[in-house]
């Protein structure tokens, strides 16, 4: 996250120097700053993994949008047809995420993916309780949550 | 943008408003009603978006932005009220 702050500072400096405050110019400054930080500053400790972060974020956004649309369509089918195919359940998922920030982001993303809704975190922060709409295969649900968590942590850490 | 697209959008959004209103009246519990109210708040953001299209006034988007930011505060407030001594079965 520290590298991101530096990148934003560089983008703001670019906007200040060029003297044109528009979002397009800010994006240009951000991209330039990213190129500098990712390739010219590779030897500095903070920025070694920064080059691979942005492609990861882009891939994650793509993955997330696809997931969002696909599972929305599944819920849509269930809402529109007269019979209910839901098999709802409340399950507990073990958390790898440790800090408040990680747990918050993960819980929000889980809530946004249709079919799962995060309810609460246990007081010792080891388990996240979820409401699942389709518990056809519990192993598969656990696996998909774990996959999402791995992707999120890969970006945050 | 063709006029019939705007018309269909308004019809769909209004139908959603009616559905949310039915849920608001029927309940049966307080959290159900809060969910319906929240849906209405995000519907208002959608209405403002479509109205900005019809009127070609971009200033309406500022209103939508503020609404999007504050709409969830009511829900959080209700949640705290529920957990701190609302009725157990209303």
């Amino acid at each position, binding site marked *: 996250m520290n590298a991101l702050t530096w990148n934003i500072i560089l983008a703001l400096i670019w906007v200040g120097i060029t003297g044109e405050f528009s979002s397009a110019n800010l994006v240009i400054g951000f991209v330039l700053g990213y190129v500098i930080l990712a390739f010219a500053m590779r030897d500095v400790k903070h920025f070694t993994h920064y080059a691979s972060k942005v492609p990861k974020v882009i891939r994650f956004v793509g993955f997330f949008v696809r997931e969002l649309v696909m599972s929305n369509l599944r819920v849509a089918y269930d809402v529109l047809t007269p019979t209910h195919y839901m098999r709802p359940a409340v399950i507990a998922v073990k958390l790898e995420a440790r800090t408040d920030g990680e747990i918050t982001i993960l819980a929000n993303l889980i809530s946004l993916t249709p079919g799962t809704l995060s309810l609460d975190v*246990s007081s010792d922060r080891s388990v996240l309780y979820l409401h699942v709409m389709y518990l056809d295969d519990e192993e598969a649900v656990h696996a998909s949550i774990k996959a999402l968590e791995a992707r999120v942590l890969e970006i945050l850490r | *943008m063709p006029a019939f697209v705007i018309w269909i959008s308004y019809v769909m959004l209004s139908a959603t408003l009616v559905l949310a209103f039915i849920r608001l009246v029927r309940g049966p519990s307080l*959290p159900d009603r809060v969910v319906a109210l*929240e849906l209405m708040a995000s519907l208002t953001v959608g209405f403002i978006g479509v109205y900005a299209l019809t009127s070609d006034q971009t200033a309406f988007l500022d209103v939508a932005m503020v609404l*999007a930011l504050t709409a969830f505060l009511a829900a959080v407030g209700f949640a705290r009220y529920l957990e701190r001594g609302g009725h157990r079965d209303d």
Partner: protein
Amino acid sequence: MINSLLASVFVLSGCFFMLLAGLGALRMPDLLMRMHATTKAGALGIGLIMVGVAIHFLDSGVTTRVMAIVLFIILTAPVAAHAIGRAGYFVGVPLWEHMVKDELKGRYDEQTHTLASPPKDETQGGR
């Protein structure tokens, strides 16, 4: 021309998802499942409508505002859903009778407001 067509498609599909959210709020059998419908379909619907607005105006100021609106909705919708869902569950809103499983039941202490984690052998998919 192509802009107008694209914007129409986005706005219409956004409105369709909003309608779906409304239908879900009305038709789903219990509180938690109604929230599944309203938060996700609602957030996706607003997002699509706003993308349509951005395509229609094609202006950097509008695009910035649209991005801010979508970001705010994506940030706040799950928080509100979590708050209401949690409150509803612990206040004791009746759940659908066809629930398959409930691992949260009985783990919450109303006096101390602590929530226990399940015993080790019950959870699956650990590390």
